[in-house]
């Protein structure tokens, strides 16, 4: 009997010794990650309605994975049969990534950065997880006002990660786009030389990757990225050359219309409207009839750039007629017709275009711009009564949209249009309220911050409400989405303090 008990006790132990401990760890880690993510997904679904207890539950789940399955231990354990140990390390890194995202959804970007740093330090994170962490970190740094660190982080993404996935043989676009975004920020901050240097770095990486990727599926995208970087640097000839190279790649067939259209756009930017028209015609032939609106719009813009206004008007009219349902192309065509007619002195016809646009696509950003142009035209012409009547009518339209539309973008555009219309008809106090409302509702966005700064300036200069202006500048100094805006608010506060002194 005793010997049977010994066998019963020993055999499972021996069998367990034959099994794969890493496989078991991976399975448990994946299960715990799934469960914690389920809670996190529920939090994301409920948005602001999610309570702190739920957030803590999800965070505890992710933290537990980090504690039970430390990435450093599993990444270096080695000797596993099928890489299961490395998978455990990857799952652990993913848990840290999820913790960062969770902190981000609660607006705690500094804490998120700390978790992103953990992922980037994890030896077994794997390139996909590490790339996500690096992108998230750079964005979080930018949000908390550490612009220089964010720029450095974006530039580092370009050098740390490979631009072509060796397994899928496809371009990892973010690896090339991140430094280009950094270059744009550098340019905005007046550091053009550094921006160009970053772009040249991207171009070198594209060319280096192309040495082995030529003729393969990644080549057209690499050429396109090279073209984008050259264009951003102002080297339009180089950009056109890269796009032509992309068109010559065997894997380019599916992207051909897009590339030809890009060639047209760059030709137009390089002040070669004839070439732009030729490329537009080519892109039109490549596209199916339903997809030809962008090419026709490009042709119309090329006519507008050089040619009699009637040709441009006719080309835009063709877009409107042939694509009555094309939301963006139709709106752009009508708006451009209005501008050309306005410039040519045909105000009645221009107003008719603007009104048609506002009536047919009331939620389009250009429809708001069209309403504003009508009011501003009358105001600029000294027709105060007409400006007031048109303004009241436009405000009515905008208020109706604010009340009926739930789309966040439309809400933002409509509220901005309300403020602009009020400013155009000289109602400064309601305009100030409308701008402040925009800032209060969208503090983390660029339009929200711009509205906040505008409201503060309005209060400071036109309304003489220095207290109100100071309060707004203080809010902006604390909560504005970008470093530049915070710096502007700080400078305004210092100026006000000096004036008082």
């Amino acid at each position, binding site marked *: 009997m005793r010997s049977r008990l010994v066998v019963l006790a020993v055999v499972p132990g021996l069998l*367990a010794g*034959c*099994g*794969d401990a890493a496989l078991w760890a991976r*399975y448990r880690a994946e299960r715990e990650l*799934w469960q914690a993510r389920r809670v996190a997904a529920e939090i994301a679904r409920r948005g602001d309605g999610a309570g702190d207890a739920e957030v803590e539950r999800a965070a505890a789940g992710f933290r537990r994975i980090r504690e039970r399955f430390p990435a450093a231990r599993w990444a270096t354990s080695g000797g596993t049969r099928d890489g299961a140990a490395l998978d455990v390390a990857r799952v652990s890194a993913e848990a840290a990534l999820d913790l960062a995202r969770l902190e981000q959804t609660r607006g705690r970007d500094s804490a998120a950065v700390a978790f992103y740093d953990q992922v980037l330090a994890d030896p077994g994170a794997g390139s996909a997880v590490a790339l996500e962490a690096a992108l998230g970190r750079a964005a979080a740094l930018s949000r908390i006002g550490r612009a220089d660190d964010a720029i450095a982080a974006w530039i580092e993404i370009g050098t740390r990660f490979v631009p072509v996935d060796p397994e899928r043989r496809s371009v990892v676009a973010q690896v090339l786009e991140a430094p280009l975004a950094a270059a744009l920020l550098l340019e905005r901050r007046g550091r053009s030389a550094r921006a160009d240097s970053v772009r040249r770095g991207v171009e070198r990486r594209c060319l280096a990757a192309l040495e082995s990727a030529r003729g393969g599926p990644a080549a057209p995208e690499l050429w396109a990225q090279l073209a984008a970087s050259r264009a951003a640097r102002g080297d339009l000839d180089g950009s056109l050359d890269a796009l032509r190279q992309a068109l010559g790649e065997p894997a380019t067939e599916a992207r051909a219309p897009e590339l030809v259209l890009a060639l047209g756009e760059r030709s137009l930017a390089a002040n070669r409207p004839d070439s732009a028209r030729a490329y537009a015609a080519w892109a039109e032939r490549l596209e199916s009839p339903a997809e030809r609106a962008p090419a026709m719009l490009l042709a119309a813009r090329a006519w507008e750039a050089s040619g009699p206004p009637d040709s441009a008007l006719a080309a835009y009219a063709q877009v409107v007629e042939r694509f009555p349902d094309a939301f963006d192309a139709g709106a752009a065509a009508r708006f451009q017709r209005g501008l050309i007619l306005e410039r040519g002195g045909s105000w009645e016809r221009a107003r008719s275009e603007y009104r048609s646009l506002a009536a047919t696509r009331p939620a389009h950003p250009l429809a708001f711009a069209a309403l504003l142009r009508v009011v501003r035209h009358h105001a600029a012409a000294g027709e105060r009564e007409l400006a007031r009547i048109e303004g009241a009518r436009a405000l009515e339209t905008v208020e109706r949209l604010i009340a009926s539309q739930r789309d966040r973008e439309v809400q933002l555009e409509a509220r901005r249009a309300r403020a602009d219309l009020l400013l155009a008809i000289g109602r400064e106090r309601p305009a100030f309220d409308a701008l402040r409302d925009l800032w209060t509702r969208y503090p983390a966005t660029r339009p929200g911050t711009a509205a906040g700064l505008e409201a503060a300036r309005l209060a400071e200069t036109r309304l003489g409400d220095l207290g109100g202006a100071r309060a707004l500048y203080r809010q902006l100094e604390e909560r504005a989405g970008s470093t530049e805006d915070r710096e502007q608010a700080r400078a305004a506060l210092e100026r006000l303090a000096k004036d008082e002194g």
Partner: protein
Amino acid sequence: MSPLEQVALAWQGLVRTARLLSRPGLWVPWAPLAAAQGLVVLALWGFAHPLVSWFMAPLLRGVAGEQALHYPAALRAMPALYAQADRAIAAVLAPVVVGAATALFADAFRDRPPRPAAACRLATRRAGTLVLAQLPFHLSAGALAWAGEWLAGGPHAAALARRAAGPAVLGGTLVIQSLFLYVAALVVIEGLGLRAAFAALPRTWERGFWAAVTLGAGLLLPPLALQQVAARSIRAAEGGIPELTAWLVVAQGVTGLLGTFVLSGGATLVYLAAIRRSDGGAPA
């Protein structure tokens, strides 16, 4: 016996067997079957545990691919993997269990005290015959299922064929099952050998085919309903509760066991009442 009488007798068989569900003695032969199915579920559910992973991981990798070793893909693959294992159990172990159960049901319907040990010994002695006698049913049902999948899944399949494949396979399986339903009774109650049992089968069709169809159809409904739930549960698993799929496999196993218990009892009663009674012995 007319078809209508057979249908009535089949329902009586189902009802009378259902009343026997609470008799523990009748469950004795089913224990090994339940244990085998339980072990399969446990091995699939806990395949990654070091106690079993040394043989389960290579097995799953070979059958369902590397992805089946990850959570929650492992649980999503579980119904299909369990079905494969269950087919093997149904072909090898279930005929012996049904044989022992048939002997026990025969005693119960004759108001004799159940002798589980004797019934199990008898079925074990006749295990080879019982397994081989049920083999044509398993092979034909397997071939039919394969044909159905081929018909519905191929690129050549017309929409009508796709829609008709499922019901056709179900109906075909029901007919094949009805043709072989009384084979266990012939082997265990009459003591016939393999050849004699097959030779006696046509007479069972004359007297009990419609009863067999009724028994099979009556017991197909609960698993079918469960299959519908299982299909929905797999969608639910995508949404966040992968364990639900595993619990449904357990529920499927339990329902299947109960169904086979009632089917065996019903078939034994029909055999005793309609097929055997008509000439006082085994159909020649």
